[in-house]
């Protein structure tokens, strides 16, 4: 391995122990340096702006928003920002959304430290890093499972256990409209009832608890 300059890394995770662990792994590596740690979306965006890290490790589940949102905002300000998702989720929609937002790699928590380092290096060098489970999940994603914003809202409320009437009241739409949305959702998720839709939505990361 030839000498390289230090890779500055921003770690975004709401869990301090995880952050500490990651920092410990990376600090021991020559050429890698955790320049900042953030526990939420806003903080991440702010610290990214302050430190301009080479690579950002981004958790998707954050207290003040979704990691994808943070990725979008960061990429909005700095389109060349290199971001690796590091999360417990491996749903195809999560991966898809993250990659859509501009993430270059995707790691599932609990990975061996070697994989983390490998991912950081690859992304730092401008490559993508998607481990086999992630690519497999991504490939399983149905091409037309893209839900509209309204459908996504409806699906979220279904997952939240709301009835059609409650969904209609919440979204200020008619119950009949809710039903038609649900019909489309079921079709897109390739399921036959709302229970399966809930499971599928959670599994694929369309909705999170």
């Amino acid at each position, binding site marked *: 391995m030839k000498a390289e300059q230090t890779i500055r890394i921003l770690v975004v995770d709401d869990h*301090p*122990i*995880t952050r*500490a*662990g990651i920092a*410990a792994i990376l600090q021991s*590596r020559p050429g890698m340096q955790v320049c900042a740690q953030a526990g939420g979306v806003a903080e991440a965006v702010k610290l990214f702006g302050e430190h301009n890290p080479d690579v950002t490790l981004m958790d998707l589940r954050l207290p003040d928003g979704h990691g994808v949102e943070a990725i979008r905002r960061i990429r909005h300000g700095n389109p060349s920002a290199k971001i690796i998702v590091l999360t*417990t989720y491996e749903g195809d929609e999560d991966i898809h959304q993250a990659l859509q937002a501009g993430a270059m790699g995707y790691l599932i*928590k609990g990975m061996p430290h070697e994989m983390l*380092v490998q991912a950081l290096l690859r992304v730092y060098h401008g490559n993508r890093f998607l481990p086999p489970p992630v690519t497999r999940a991504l490939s399983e994603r149905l091409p037309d499972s893209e839900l509209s914003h309204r459908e996504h809202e409806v699906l979220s409320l279904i997952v939240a256990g709301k009835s059609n009437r409650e969904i209609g009241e919440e979204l200020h739409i008619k119950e009949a409209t809710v039903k038609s949305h649900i019909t489309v959702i079921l079709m897109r998720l390739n399921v036959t009832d709302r229970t399966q839709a809930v499971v599928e939505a959670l599994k694929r990361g369309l909705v999170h608890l």
Partner: protein
Amino acid sequence: MIGKSTVCGFSSNGRKQSSCAGPYWSRRRAIAGFIICFALQQLSLSQTTRYTRTTWRSQDGLPENVVQSLVQDRDGYLWVGTTGGLARFDGAQFTPVSDGAVESLPVNSIYCLLVDRDGTLWAGTDGGGLLHISSSGVIKTYAAPDGLTDAFVHSIYEDSNGRLWVGTAGGLFLKEGERLVRTDAPGAVDRTDVQAITENREHHILVGSSRLVALGAGQARKITLPGNDHDRQIRSILAATDGSLWIGTDEGLLLRQGDGRFQHVAEIDGAVRALRQTSDGTIWIGTIGKGLWAYRDGSFTRVGHAGLIPIETALCIYEDVDHRVWIGTQNGLGRLEKSQISLIPLPTPNNDYGTIGGAPNGDVWMVTQAAFHVSDGVAKLMKFPGLNALSIRTVYRAKDGSTWVGTDGHGAYHLALGTLRNRSAPRYYAIPNFIRGFLETSHGETWVATNVGLYRITLKGVDRYGVEDGLAHFNIKSLFEDRNGDLWIGTDQGLSRWHNGAFVQDTATEALHTEKVWSILQDRRGTMWFGTRDHGLFRYRDNRIQQYSIAQGLVSNIVYQLLQDRTGRFWISDGETISSMPEDELEGDSPRRNGTLSATIYRMPYGDDGVQLLGGRFLSGYLAPDDTVWFPTNHGAAHVIASGEGIAGTPVVRIVGIMRDGVSLPVTQGLQLPAGSARLAFSFAPLFLGPQGGVRFRYILEGFDRDWLPAGSGHTATYTNLPAGTYRFRVQSFDVSHPERITEAAVDFSQREFFYQFWWFRLLGIVALLGCGLFAYSVHLRKVRTRFALVLEERSRLAREMHDTVIQGCTGVSTLLEAISSRRDDSTEDGELLDVARTQMRDTIDEARRAVWNLRRNEDKEIDLPCSLAALADQATRALGIPVVCMQVDPMSGISGSTGHELLMVAREAIANAGAHAHPEWIRISALLEGVDLTVTIVDNGTGFVETAVSGTAGEHYGLIGMRERMHRIGGTLVVRSVSGSGTEVVMKLRHATVEARNQHRPLIERSQ
């Protein structure tokens, strides 16, 4: 039954009756000289027509026995005016007019009746004025306020100009508008009792009271009658078609013929109450107490002597449209019809047996105990020389004119022509027992039938044939030679055929082998016919047998004698009736169904109603050369003279009543019956004034019956529990002599449904039921949803909790471990330990993540357990460094993911425990499927442990508890057997392991939501 309709005749006891008018002395004929014939009785057969008679009296429904007036309306009903009211008669039943009507008759005695040209009925009463009865039954009374000053109406007449004349006890009235106007000018018609009004050929109105007055051309002219006006009361007037004028008075009958002078009719004694000329020209004279008389061809004959008219009084005489003559008497209503049968009485009648046959010159012999010669309507005893003491059974005339005489047990005698002159004894044949009959064949043989077999007399001698020779039965009832010269022998048990000198069998003899064949005939087309005693007629043609019985329209299943006349008509006698049937119908290819053969029944003349026809010997019937038929009876020889045209008129069927559950309903169209009619009965009757014995009915309820049903004698069709719907009840009637003349009556009605039978109610019921079902289903669905939502919520909460705590924590720890690992040298012993921790942590995270999914997941994908076990074994082999092998794993499918997961977890725990504590050299896994029951066993050869000791160690204790709990959760059991020093065996047993089996045997936990 009383008396006879002949002028002279014998009553059944043979007592001679007085001869009354123009006795006909039969000519004595020179009959064959050897027959000493002498008239035992001088019997006269009247040239006047003989009549059948039927009477009705109060016990038959007549309001009262004194019948004063008769008229037939346009519908065909006969109205009968009695001293006890007015009744309508349909031929079988009397319907009283006053019966139940609010507007009952003002007075009972109906003296005279008239149907005017409008078809409405007028009735003159004895004290109640004039009644007008409309077709709807509304009665209007004309009395003093209407101008009718006298209430005793004794005559009504409508003249050719349509004027209505009313004769009363107080003068003559003419109806003008709605009023009655007294028309007898003083001096013209006395203020006396006008009992007769009629119109002569000159259209003069003849009015009879004490005097006879002719009204015409605006003036009244008195017609002088012999005798004193003061003593006279004219009762009836008849202007006959020949111009003669008949005046019936209390003193007798006056007749004015061509010479213009009235003469007293000497033959008629007593008051003449009724005069009527019938369509055949006969003038009927009804007297009070002196009988009913008929005048025809210049002579008066007394009809119905000896009690036809019980007290010899005829109050009225009427002829209906079918030319039946009706007589109103003081003792009932009588109907006379021309009889087509003439009965020639024998001097000594015999109820036992009788035969009849042809005599010379077209005459007839009838034989009972003795032989009688019937000629010109007179029967005379025949005496055979030498046979005086013998009882004669049958006489047969051979072709050569000689005569065969059969006796009762004394053989057969042949009286040849030659022996007649010589008066020598007849030739005797010792043929024993009872001679049934003779038959001379075309070969010149004479066959003699007896009750003990068949005898053949030829020039060579006498041969006997019995059962042993092939004869069907010894008791012979009929003999016949067909055109081919074959002899047919009918016996009391079967039929035999003699062909070319031997008895032969054919289709007919086989088919009739049990029948009593009493009559045999070959018709003019060559078809053979067999009449049987019990089962009707059998036709034998083209080697096929066809049976005719009552079912095909035969009058009876008894056939004594079958004859065919030269017009082709078939004649049949049974025990009681003579009937005839047209040839074409019997010759038809297939017999008609439903009794529609046209059978004409011939009724015996009055006085001989109970006559028994005789059969069983032959001949029991004879076709005379003049093409008339004769039959023997116990009253003498019955001679049917008439053609077979059958009865006059057609019975018109009517529906006379509808009864619903015992309540009478009006007979109207479109009747709406309320729901729940249990019993519906239609009664019908023929309107037919003739004899109704041959009237047949059939009916159908359209919408219910598939086919016409023949009605029995009940004249009622009853239906029970008709389903709701629209129906049409049709009834048809016809007389058997004219089955093609059908009349029909029908009534439409509908049976309503119960409200619960209406379609809308049923629909409503279905909708309600569906609604209930849907409601129940939705309630159930909501329940399920609620429960599911609760479960889902709980699971989601758990999953969230797990994620937020366990997984989060684990990932944190994992990261830390990774961090430590990344800083250390892996070669150290601590490094190894750290690696185990790292791996374990990763697995835990995976497990936790999967557990979260399982919590959320409802459906369960199947797992390939053998494959998973193999993977587990490989993994353990690598992790533990000892061989962990799947020794025996049955191929299996249908293990659900959750179940399989638990099993794998338990297996892994067991392997891990063994590897961690027992230091085995190997671990073996087996999974055996027995039916649907699964057993997974993990065996090692390690140190084992003492079970009690195990519970002491907390970790292992919990490990085992966890394993047990997992097994329990999926409805299985866990058994751990361990012997210290020789290994451990962990056995997981799961009954109904497959998804299919699990669904049938719901486990406790897995699907409780």
